[in-house]
């Protein structure tokens, strides 16, 4: 075992994994985290805790991760390169490991232009690829980025992201390969709506033998409404929402749109589960955690395996 985390045990046991997501609050209220945690407990294997997502300042991801641990959930501690240099990153990695966090997800982070502090400097001292490598070198070689050795290094199960829908498409699978070479143990993809394009990317990954080397968790996000679908299609960078999805949501009464959104999501999960190379699902129910148990149940993902 690299980290001995529950997620690692589930994936290495060959079980189909299910991870969820929890966005920390824009204040210092621990109850907001606990409330979200209650919906996810026993329903998902681990929960991604986002790090100032969309460049909006929120409770720090390591702190919210610790609250999840107190609530009996396993966090996937997200860390972005926008807000910290390599010194801060490494000290947070050590501190969060010392306090029981075992999974880390290494990300670039959205540009601050999109967030609530557009005047801020960005850091990007290192990029997500280099962060993955830094976490792996700490674990495997007990060394910091600056070369110092550590007696007790943080030993994380290392996650990374992949977006099969960003351009240029043909390079995406090579970037995945780079992340694996850098040290990623598992990959969570951008929300998938264009199933054909995802399948094409996955075929490339299978052909290159990449799915033998890394666990790919397919990302899904249920649509709450036509409005959300249109917003995702037109305003969220790197998102590919086919007209077919919009059409299905438009085709039902307004009151039924959320149910239809969930139905689409469940169908997607079932299709993704059949695809060679998909090791699990990353279910990002954005500010909709209360519907996660229902989606997991309908998709046949409950009960979760005990490891």
């Amino acid at each position, binding site marked *: 075992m690299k980290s001995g985390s529950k997620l690692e045990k589930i994936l290495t046991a060959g079980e189909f994994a299910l991870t969820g997501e929890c966005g920390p609050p824009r204040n210092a209220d621990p109850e907001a985290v606990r409330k979200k945690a209650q919906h996810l407990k026993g329903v998902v294997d681990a929960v991604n805790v986002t790090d100032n997502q969309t460049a909006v300042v929120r409770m720090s991801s390591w702190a919210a991760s610790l609250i999840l641990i107190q609530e009996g959930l396993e966090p996937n501690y997200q860390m972005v390169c926008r807000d910290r240099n390599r010194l801060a990153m490494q000290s947070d990695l050590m501190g969060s490991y010392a306090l029981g966090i075992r999974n880390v997800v290494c990300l670039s982070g959205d*540009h*601050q*232009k999109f967030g609530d502090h*557009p*005047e*801020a*400097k*960005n850091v990007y001292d290192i990029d997500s690829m280099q962060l993955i490598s830094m976490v792996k070198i700490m674990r495997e070689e007990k060394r910091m980025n600056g070369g110092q050795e550590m007696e007790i290094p943080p030993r994380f199960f290392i996650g990374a992201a992949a977006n099969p829908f960003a351009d240029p498409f043909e390079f995406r699978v090579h970037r995945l390969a780079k992340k694996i070479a850098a040290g990623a143990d598992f990959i969570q993809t951008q929300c998938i709506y264009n199933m054909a394009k995802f399948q094409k990317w996955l075929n490339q990954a299978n052909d290159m033998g990449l799915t033998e080397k890394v666990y790919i968790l397919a990302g899904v996000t249920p649509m709450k409404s036509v409005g959300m679908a249109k917003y995702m299609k037109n305003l969220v960078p790197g998102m590919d929402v086919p007209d077919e999805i919009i059409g299905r949501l438009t085709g039902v009464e307004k009151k039924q749109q959320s149910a239809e959104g969930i139905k689409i999501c469940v169908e997607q999960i079932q299709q993704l589960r059949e695809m060679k190379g998909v090791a699990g699902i990353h279910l990002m129910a954005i500010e909709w955690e209360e519907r996660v148990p229902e989606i997991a149940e309908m998709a046949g993902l409950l009960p979760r395996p005990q490891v």
Partner: protein
Amino acid sequence: MIVAERKPLNDIVKMVEPYRKVLILGCKGCVTVCNAGGVKEVGILASALKIAAKKEGKELIVGERTLERQCDPEYIEQVKDVIGEYEAVVSIACGVGPQFLAERYPETDIFPGVNTEFMGGALAHGVWTERCAGCGACLVHNFGGYCPIARCSKSLLNGPCGGSADGKCEIDKNVDCVWHLIVEKLTRQGKLDNLLQVQPPKSWTTARDGGPRKVIREDLAQ
């Protein structure tokens, strides 16, 4: 000016190793003024490369040319008839040059022969110093004409920090503490009050942090 310094000769020798015909392309702008990439430096680099090749028993044809500027398509265009004769070009303009060349001549391999260091000026013959960080919103008038963003090692807007000693910066005794200079000057001018207000966080949207920048002058651009 933009201050640049030639890369170590061995680095350039390695860059051009696979080629037999190389053009060294200089620039008569900033890099001529800071003695890194003008007519004279083109000649010196060309000779050095030829000697290095000869030592290896290799035949290397080295062309020499220096453009008015390499940051302007009009001048980049001037090599269009000769560039095809070479397998590679070593541009010794600032970092803009090799990029403009690479965009205009996609079939030719382009290499940078200098390291672009900073925007600054000459202190003495052969000595250049950084003065501007290109933040896109100049504030030097608030600091006695000194730029703490470019010249303070921590870019503090409310310095000096606790590492200032004898007018020098904590990182190096050869680096002036710009905040020491600012305080001294405003004290002399009786304007120390200007420094007593807390300077709020700066907006970096106009700096590189806001993304790659472009200036469009509507009155000039067609």
